[in-house]
C-alpha cells in the first residue's frame, strides 16, 4: 500500500463517540475549514 500523503484524500472511517454513537470522520472535516485529527497513544 502506498503511503498516504499530503494532497491525498483522507480515509473516511466510521468510529464511535464515547456515547456509543457512530461518527464518520467526514462528518467532522466537512463542517470545518480544517480538521486537526490527533491520534493518541495509550492513555496510561
Amino acid at each position, binding site marked *: 500500500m502506498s503511503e498516504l500523503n*499530503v494532497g491525498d*484524500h483522507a*480515509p473516511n472511517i466510521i*468510529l464511535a463517540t464515547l456515547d456509543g454513537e457512530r461518527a464518520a470522520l467526514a462528518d467532522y472535516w466537512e463542517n470545518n475549514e480544517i480538521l486537526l485529527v490527533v*491520534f493518541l497513544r495509550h492513555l*496510561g
Partner: protein
Amino acid sequence: MQLHRHKDEFRRYDTNVLLISFSADVLAKNWLQETGVSFSILVDRERIAYKAFQLGRSLLRSWGLKTWLAYAGLMLKGRRWRGIQDDSTQLGGDFLIDRQGRILFAWRSRDPAHRPSAEKLMQLAKDHHRNRE
C-alpha cells in the same frame, strides 16, 4: 495537553480538533476528566483508523530513552504515573484535513515524544486560513 491551551486560537482559524483513541471508553472518559480537555474524541478500539492512516507500532521506539525522559519530565510537572495501560507500542500521529477531505499535513510519530509542536500546527492552520481569504 498543549493543543488544548491553544483551542481558542484554533477556533479563530476555523480549525476543529478531533482526538482519536484506541483505549477503552472508560480510560478515555477518565483521561478527559483528569485533563479537562474539551475536544471531541472518537474511539477506535480495533485501530481501523490507525491502520488506514498508517500509524506504526514499535516496542523499541515506544520505550527508548527519549520516552523515559519525556515521562520523567511530565511526572516532575505533577502528572501522575498510572502504570502501563493498554497497548503502549502504538504510535500516534497528527493530520490536518481540509473541508474536502484532502490531507494538508501528515505527521506519523517515530516515537512517543515525536510530535509536531502546537505552534507548528497553529501556523499551518493560520497559513491555510489566510490562503483561503
